[in-house]
């Protein structure tokens, strides 16, 4: 965006402090516009005709540097781009990288449906939510429009996920569009040979389109400029993903250059970037090596400016790290690291229920909590104040000590002797070395649980209730 202080945004607001946006003052609202946690349309008064000019001016100033492109329709719609910074700590990255996994039109129909279902059903629980993948890319390997159209139709029937139609043959793309025209798919791709025809398709069907110019940023920019002049800015840029050696280094350089130019204000190239880690499969024959290398390339370009990518491996050992590295990079760095240090109830604990200790590092806490809750274990869970550091590191760094745990327990007002029948505390396995100190400090029975809370259900089954000494 073109402004960076709330004061600059405030000048355009009605300054009535009406509160309709949910903020007490226009200045507070302006601050949220700058950190992009509110939209300008949340201010209902500025939408009135008399403020039209101010609205339009401010809206233009607030527009993100990198255009935001929408693919698909309905609930599963995918948004890409929309970024304003080169480093996540400067604000946050918006619209996480969209992962599209491929199918191809020479696949057996049954295999195709099975693969699409696998892609759309894949999920991994993480800090209160499920991580999932986003899109299906349909590759034309037959070069037959009819065959491609049929494959697209089958995918459309099977899933609501947004689609990427992949071919360099305009007739094939047209057949794909006919089969998915209500789904706002992304076209892949226009290149130096077919760009006129593909541009016409993109305009006729009003869909976003990828521009493919392998290792030629002049051509990429020319195409982007040309498409914009022809009437569409719904563009995605693919500077080519070369999978190995110096070519891969050059690819990395191209990604950094394109994004830097866009953030620096070159509107002609300020579009989302596509990576195609799929090409790792053109460099490796062995599927495990190919999967590994594809995951590595995907990780590099999830971190460095890929907004959307096409992948092939659906092995969990590829998808799980991909999902997690994306979450890593797109997590808002401004969100709190910690939960409040306190005693939490999981389920409906009674005086017979176990009492467990963990840290107030949000990730640790939520992991332990979900392991307990999803296994329907009623218990008390103490989040000890370790300055938001996990168990192992906090023991090493002195943020988790017997004295700290005792203090946490005392401050919560919970009395082990009175409020439980067992006067027992269960420590995380990773702080086993605190057991002796803990017994001395608290006078309670101290048990050492497993090193990973995923094993708590089994451990409790064996060790709870504690045997009377």
């Amino acid at each position, binding site marked *: 965006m073109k402004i960076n202080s709330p004061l600059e945004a405030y000048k355009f607001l009605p300054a009535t402090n009406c509160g309709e946006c949910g903020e007490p003052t226009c200045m507070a609202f302006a601050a949220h516009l700058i950190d992009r946690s509110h939209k300008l349309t949340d201010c209902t008064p500025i939408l009135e005709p008399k403020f039209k000019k101010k609205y339009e001016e401010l809206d233009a100033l607030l527009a993100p540097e990198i255009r935001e492109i929408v693919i698909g329709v309905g609930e599963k719609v995918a948004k890409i781009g929309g970024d304003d910074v080169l480093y996540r700590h400067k604000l946050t990255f918006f619209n996480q990288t969209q992962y599209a996994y491929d199918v191809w039109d020479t696949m057996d129909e049954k295999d195709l449906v099975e693969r699409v279902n696998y892609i759309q059903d894949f999920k991994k629980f993480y800090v209160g939510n499920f991580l999932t993948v986003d899109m299906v890319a349909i590759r034309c390997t037959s070069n037959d429009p009819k065959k491609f159209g049929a494959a697209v139709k089958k995918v459309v029937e099977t899933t609501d996920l947004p689609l990427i139609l992949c071919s360099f043959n305009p007739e094939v793309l047209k057949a794909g569009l006919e089969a998915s025209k209500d789904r706002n798919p992304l076209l892949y791709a226009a290149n130096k040979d077919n760009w006129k025809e593909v541009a016409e398709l993109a305009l006729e069907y009003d869909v976003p389109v990828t521009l493919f110019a392998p290792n030629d940023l002049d051509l990429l920019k020319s195409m982007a400029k040309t498409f914009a002049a022809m009437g569409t800015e719904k563009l995605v840029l693919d500077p080519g993903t070369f999978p190995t050696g110096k070519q891969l*280094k050059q690819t990395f350089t191209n990604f950094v250059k394109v994004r830097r130019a866009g953030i620096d204000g070159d509107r002609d190239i300020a579009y989302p970037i596509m990576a195609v880690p799929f090409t790792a499969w053109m460099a490796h024959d062995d599927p495990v090596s190919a999967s590994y290398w594809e995951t590595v390339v995907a990780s590099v370009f999830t971190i460095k400016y890929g907004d959307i990518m096409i992948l092939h491996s659906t092995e969990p050992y590829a998808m799980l790290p991909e999902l997690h*590295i994306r979450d890593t990079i797109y997590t808002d760095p401004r969100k709190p690291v910690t939960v409040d240090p306190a005693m939490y109830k999981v389920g409906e604990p009674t005086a017979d229920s176990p009492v467990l200790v963990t840290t107030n590092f949000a990730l640790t806490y939520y992991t332990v909590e979900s392991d307990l809750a999803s296994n329907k274990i009623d218990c008390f869970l103490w989040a000890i104040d370790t300055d938001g550091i996990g168990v192992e590191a906090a023991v090493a760094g002195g943020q988790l000590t017997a004295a700290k745990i005792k203090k946490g327990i005392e401050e919560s007002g919970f009395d082990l002797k009175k409020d439980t029948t067992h006067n027992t505390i269960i420590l995380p396995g990773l702080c086993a070395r605190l057991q002796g100190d803990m017994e001395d400090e608290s006078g309670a029975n101290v048990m050492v649980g497993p090193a990973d809370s995923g094993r708590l259900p089994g451990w409790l089954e064996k060790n709870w209730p504690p045997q009377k000494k």
Partner: protein
Amino acid sequence: MTKKMKLSQLSDMLQDLDVESLEGVTIEGDIELNITGGGGLNPALAYALGSEISQISLHMANIGRMLGFPAEQLFASAFGMGEMPQPQALPTSPKIQELLASKFEVSKVDNWKNPIQEVTLGATSGDGGSRKNTVTIGGENALPYYFDAEMPHRNYVTMDVFDMPIGMAKSVKGNYEDVINDPAEWAKKVVREFNADMVTIHLISTDPLINDTSAKEAAKVVEDVLQAVDVPIVIGGSGNPEKDPEVLEKAAEVAEGERVLLASASLNLDYARIAKAAMDYGHVVLSWTQLEINAQKELNRKLMKQCNVPRDRIIMDPTTAALGYGLDYAYTNMERIRLAGLMGDDELTFPMSSGTTNAWGAREAWMVSSPLKQDSDWGPREYRGPIWEIVTGLALSLAGNDMFMMMHPTSVQVLKEITQTLYGSIESEEIDITNWIGAEV
């Protein structure tokens, strides 16, 4: 097309033809339409021409809209129309026959002016040690692998060796079962078979809560490892803040002149004692803090000002959290440290080291399957573990980390491959991706 043509001439040219529309007509360049004597025009031609002119005006209006001008309002007021159709409803678009020429340009970052300190580990016989080679890290003038400035040194990997058998993920353990009771053999194995650039000997048995091995005994293990391998080494304590200074002091003494990395000085132990040991016996100090850029500044400052450690003897470990377990903080912490260093913060211009082995603490790396029933199948853990360590390290390499402490041979191999590819030292056959869509995989 700069030639001017009067409408009557056009009409004359086409008068014998039964024209219904002007298909394929594109008008480029400067346009001047001089319409006179409309009365004498062939009605079909007039209609067709009118249609074409209206189309052009729509294209022009569309361009006007793209430039931010509310063209639809102009139309509305000119013709008393209500709402204009949406722009995408325009029947056609400007036809462009050739790509608009354009040159891509981007500037280099101009405020990365401060180079990162170069630090050398290991000393050869010429420098009073017995290592066959040394390892130098740091010296960057830009973020890693960026085109703004050549990266002077590649990333290096030091592999973990422990002075006693420890609990390990199954897929890690399989590689070390034959050497688990012999740190010297273990060290040889990681160098010879797994291509480790360096070896880290962790003296964990010295922890009073584990074996309470004496500093003197532990120092013997260090001597054994120095005998067994000729690469530079890192010496790690047990993490016990009371015992570590004594252990590292003794180890530093027996390794005199070898320019090892002492791991580590931190704010919660007697860092001055470790710094002094490094100074007295010619070593480098690892300055370890926990995900806190200000603590890192403080410790570095104390090492330099209070303990007089020279700048070329400090490496930082700002802490590595595993993928899915705080890597977002670790990544951003390192990236901020590196950017601050490049932009001139003298307290942060040091090369960095990552305890990438921490990735094995992630349950995704070692558990047989997900503890949660709702999850999709996690697949075989022997493939999940190494990639967890790779992606953890890779992310930090992009944040500026120079040296990696690692555990699994496959992880080491792949991490070296990708970091050296981005560094630019890996040659490989060129691959033509022009038609990747049709690739048989």
